[in-house]
């Protein structure tokens, strides 16, 4: 890690995306919107959780894959941070459920994180600090969400579900990718929020663009370049938070990346905005394909607002954790199980039922 002898990296990773999808054109049909809304957002379809799935279940699935991929003994995990804006409980940690399901702990540091869509990358940074300082052997950072948009709101096209788990450690021989540097750019910018007890979020519509997403991601990205002495051409891949399918390409262009560098880490057109999971799922998709020595630029974004940016180099260890029969991101992204809008509304608790409604 820059500025010291200590090294820190990603030891393993896991992804999970529910198999159900709804098409943008189906949402547009029901709400009387332009049939090309999906094209405008570059989101053709989005993932939908089953009634029995939530942030805890998806976090467990992603974490189990991460642990299985690298053959990690659960007792080595000394910290678990789950980042989400849709934790199943307002009060009661999601992380305890993940730890029990993995067989990790009880000696484990834990807290649930919330920072809109960047709680997952914030969890990665917390794990980096604990691993480098030798307070823990391995840290498990998870970004997961089952986000909701108000019926008929523009968020209906994007708010989806997914989870990504990143295991962070300090032993270079275990790295599948070394984290060379991380930085955060954070200001008090109210572009998107959800008040206590409210089911659906509110947002500042176009205010979510220039002064929010673009300003913060660009500022964090420029700092990576200046601190690391790099230019966009030094990176093989660039992964961004993806509230829709067009913002990552636009901010990539603004920073100087070509569309080809952004393409592999861009999943929003096929699964929508998985919020806290989005940028980490994009990174996981890149790690599924990257070669040792490849350099990866990563910039998450969370409304409120902040951006966490990372500079990574893929390690030789990536070869050791491939081909273990563990599913890739593409295995989850690929799905043709489409719902109609009425079933989607039923599953997402948008229809009032006497009992057993989804959350």
């Amino acid at each position, binding site marked *: 890690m820059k500025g010291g002898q200590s090294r820190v990296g990603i030891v393993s990773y896991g992804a999970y995306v529910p198999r159900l999808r709804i098409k943008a054109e189906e949402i547009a049909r029901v709400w009387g919107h332009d049939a090309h809304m999906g094209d405008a957002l570059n989101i053709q379809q989005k993932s939908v959780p089953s009634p029995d799935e939530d942030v805890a*279940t998806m976090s467990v699935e992603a974490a189990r894959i991460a642990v299985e991929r690298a053959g990690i003994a659960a007792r080595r995990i000394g910290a678990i941070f789950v980042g989400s804006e849709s934790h199943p*409980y307002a009060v009661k940690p999601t992380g305890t459920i993940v730890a029990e399901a993995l067989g990790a702990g009880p000696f484990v540091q834990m807290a649930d994180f919330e920072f809109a869509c960047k709680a997952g990358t914030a969890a990665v940074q917390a794990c980096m600090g604990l691993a480098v300082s030798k307070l823990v052997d391995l840290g498990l950072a998870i970004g997961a969400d089952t986000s909701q948009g108000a019926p008929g709101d523009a968020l209906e096209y994007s708010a989806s579900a997914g989870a990504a788990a990143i295991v962070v450690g300090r032993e270079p021989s275990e790295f599948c990718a070394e984290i060379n540097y991380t930085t955060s750019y954070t200001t008090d910018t109210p572009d998107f929020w959800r008040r206590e007890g409210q089911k659906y979020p509110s947002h500042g519509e176009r205010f979510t663009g220039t002064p929010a997403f673009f300003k913060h991601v660009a500022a964090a990205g420029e700092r990576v370049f200046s601190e690391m002495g790099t230019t966009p051409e030094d990176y093989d891949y660039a992964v961004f938070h993806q509230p829709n399918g067009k913002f990552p390409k636009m901010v990539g262009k603004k920073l100087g990346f070509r569309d080809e560098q952004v393409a592999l880490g861009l999943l929003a057109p096929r699964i929508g905005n998985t919020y806290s999971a989005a940028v980490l799922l994009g990174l996981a998709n890149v790690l599924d394909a990257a070669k040792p020595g490849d350099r990866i630029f990563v910039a998450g974004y969370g409304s409120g607002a902040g951006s966490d940016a990372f500079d990574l180099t893929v390690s030789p260890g990536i070869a050791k954790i491939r081909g273990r029969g563990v599913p890739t991101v593409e295995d989850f992204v690929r799905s043709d199980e489409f719902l109609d809008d009425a079933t989607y509304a039923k599953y997402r608790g948008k229809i009032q039922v006497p009992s057993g409604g989804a959350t």
Partner: protein
Amino acid sequence: MTVPRFWREQPQRYRLLGAECNNCGGIYFPPRTVCPECRRESIGKMVQRQLSGRGTVLAHTVVHQPADGFELQVPYVMAIVELEEGCRVMAQVVDVVPGSVGTGLPVEMTFRRIREDGRNGVIYYGYKFRPMRHTTLDKRVANSIASPKPSSTPPRSPAGSRPRRS
């Protein structure tokens, strides 16, 4: 179900932690403190056994009249799954079209919400099963769906194979 009772059973419900008799090698789920085969000879010899979570559907039914809390999932599949270790467990099979489930279908454990104590109550999580992920669904496994093999490991005892409803 009360919260303390569920809490006691979390290791088995969350990650299929069973029990093994070190006297006869019998494997049990839910875990037992005494082996029904060896009885007193098994005392002190029962150890925890982490089950693989992989198995095949032995029998199934499609539920159209749901249990409380399952209304949104109708129609859904309940099955008796024979695990690789030989013991049997009753559980829901998810991520499938009900008509596509048949005897011999390879399945694996997944972690899902089972039910909740109303809007203010605790959420109960636990195991369900889903078809084996296609990355591991090689030709050999695909063939076994077409021609299911008879059960190679008969249940060790009625108690050991008692279906467990979540």
